[in-house]
């Protein structure tokens, strides 16, 4: 029975992390699809989510619900700012330059966070209680349950957004064929800003959900974000179902490896998987 409890524990942990990776991977996908670039600032959207939540709770004294909303909204706005001020002014369309540019902006964001919130780790209170819940013999934090529930909700909303709303359809049009989209009157510039906003929202959401579990610092998003990127590549970079599959898959592989093989090398798992995917099948599981 112990073995089964352990397995269940690892699966819960894997699903929780997987949910976070999925949100981050979706953020990467949105920008990749509408703008064709990899947005390295995605990792900082995650950290910012946690930072804004912290400030909302402790500097503005907001109640948890409001603070969550304000935090995600704040990162959404930051996303638009990054696109408008950082990416759009670029004179060069050179792929290399754009990749390095988002890396540079990412570094600036991290530096700003370090300046504003300091170098030290901070604790963020969880959404709903600290006592672990017991389920089928394994324990799971209420925060982890929140992560899973809210992630699923977010995915459902996202599907509805892309299938049913004008903005969502416009974004898909731009992703599919930018020239054609602008010809039919879709404001491509605004769509690009919107996709960065959406990426910000997804990253911010991941941040507010995960930082109560991992604690918060100005660079907390880096490793998580890179793993989220690895998950996106695993699932097939640019594919939304792929991001979900890759995120959950990576989370589970990581957790099971840490549990059964070695917990010291846990961080390596995601990147070994990444290297294997890139070397053997760069398109990933569901890639185009």
């Amino acid at each position, binding site marked *: 029975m112990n073995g089964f409890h352990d397995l269940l524990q690892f699966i819960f942990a894997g699903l929780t992390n997987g949910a976070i990776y999925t949100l981050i991977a979706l953020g990467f996908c949105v920008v990749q699809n509408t703008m064709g670039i990899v947005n390295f600032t995605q990792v900082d959207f995650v950290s910012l989510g946690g930072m804004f939540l912290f400030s909302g709770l402790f500097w503005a004294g907001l109640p948890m619900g409001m603070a969550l909303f304000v935090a995600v909204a704040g990162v959404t706005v930051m996303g638009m700012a990054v696109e408008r001020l950082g990416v759009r002014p670029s004179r060069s369309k050179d792929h290399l330059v754009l*990749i390095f540019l988002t890396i540079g902006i990412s570094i600036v964001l991290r*530096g700003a966070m370090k300046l504003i919130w300091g170098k030290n780790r901070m604790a963020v209170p969880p959404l709903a209680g600290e006592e672990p819940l017991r389920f089928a013999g394994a324990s799971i934090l209420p925060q982890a349950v929140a992560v899973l529930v809210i992630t699923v909700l977010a995915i459902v909303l996202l599907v509805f957004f892309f299938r049913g709303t004008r903005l969502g359809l416009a974004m898909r049009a731009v992703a599919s064929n930018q020239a054609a989209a602008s010809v039919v009157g879709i404001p491509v510039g605004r769509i690009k800003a919107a996709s960065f906003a959406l990426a910000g929202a997804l990253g911010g959401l991941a941040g507010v959900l995960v930082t109560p579990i991992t604690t918060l610092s100005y660079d907390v998003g880096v490793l998580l974000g890179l793993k989220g990127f*690895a998950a996106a590549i695993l699932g097939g970079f640019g594919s939304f179902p792929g991001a979900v599959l890759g995120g959950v898959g990576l989370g589970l592989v990581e957790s099971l490896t840490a549990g059964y093989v070695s917990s010291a090398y846990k961080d390596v798992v995601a990147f*070994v998987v990444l*290297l294997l995917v*890139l070397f053997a099948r760069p398109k990933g599981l569901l890639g185009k």
Partner: protein
Amino acid sequence: MLSAKDNIFYFLYLHRTGLTVTFLSILLLLWPMVESNPYTVGLSNLIAIYVLVVLGLNLFIGYAGQISLGHAAFFAIGAYGSAIATTTLGLPAWPSMIAVALVTVLVALAVGVPALKLSGHYLAMATLGFNIVVYTVLVQWDTVTGGPSGFSGIPYLTLGSLVFDNEIRFHYLVWTFAMVALLLCLNLVRSGVGRGLAAMAEDETAASTLGVDIRRSKVKVFVLSATLASIAGSLFAHCYAFVSPESFNIFVSVDFMIMVVVGGMGSIWGTLFGASLITLLPEWIEALDTFKEIVHGLILVLILLFLPQGLIAGLVESVRKKIALSK
């Protein structure tokens, strides 16, 4: 018939690269007689070591048009390789450096051959992932590497009875390596191979129809840059007698990339400038520890937005164009 003066000018022009490097080397040779503050000399030694890394990286990123966000991994293999070989295994230092460099070649081939089939962000992520794997191993495999607290007691390099144990002696050692590497890279860039790389960076299809073996060229440049980083790492270990994983994480790789961009992607002389600027920044900005990311990030962003070819190359390019168009 050319006059004597014309002959001299022609000779100078023909050998301009070798002469400039010689001139710079003479300056470096004489410098410790003027400046004997070990701290200042130590700083320039660090610059020399980084120049070695960034020369190779610039060939890869700037000349061949590829991406590596994980070169600190090769720097680490050189450093820890030499450290373990000379301290734990007690092997002689110079042969170890060569052996470690050969190991790096093998690792670079193992990673490079599959990774270089990718491009753009896939390649960036592959190199980044590789760096993270190496870094994590350095931290976790503490029985061999000393873990997060680092690896100390690395012996100094010796040449006969001469022990390289102070900054002045390091100066001659590391700058010799740096100048030799500079000359070799300048030669490469001015050759048919260099032109092939530049062609490949701009248009792989065109370059392949001209006879450039794209896959092989990419791998060769990657291995060359990894080897230079490894040698730099070995020198780093023997000069500071201590290494810790923090000198080899992905942020260091990104700093190397910033040095390339600042100096100018594809500008070999620019790497001297780029490496110097980024290394000297902490000296000029007192509170750099707090502002480090912002400063580095802003430099990178501003250069990429306004002068994508880098400061030196950008200036040289505009001057050249003006001269050409005024003729």
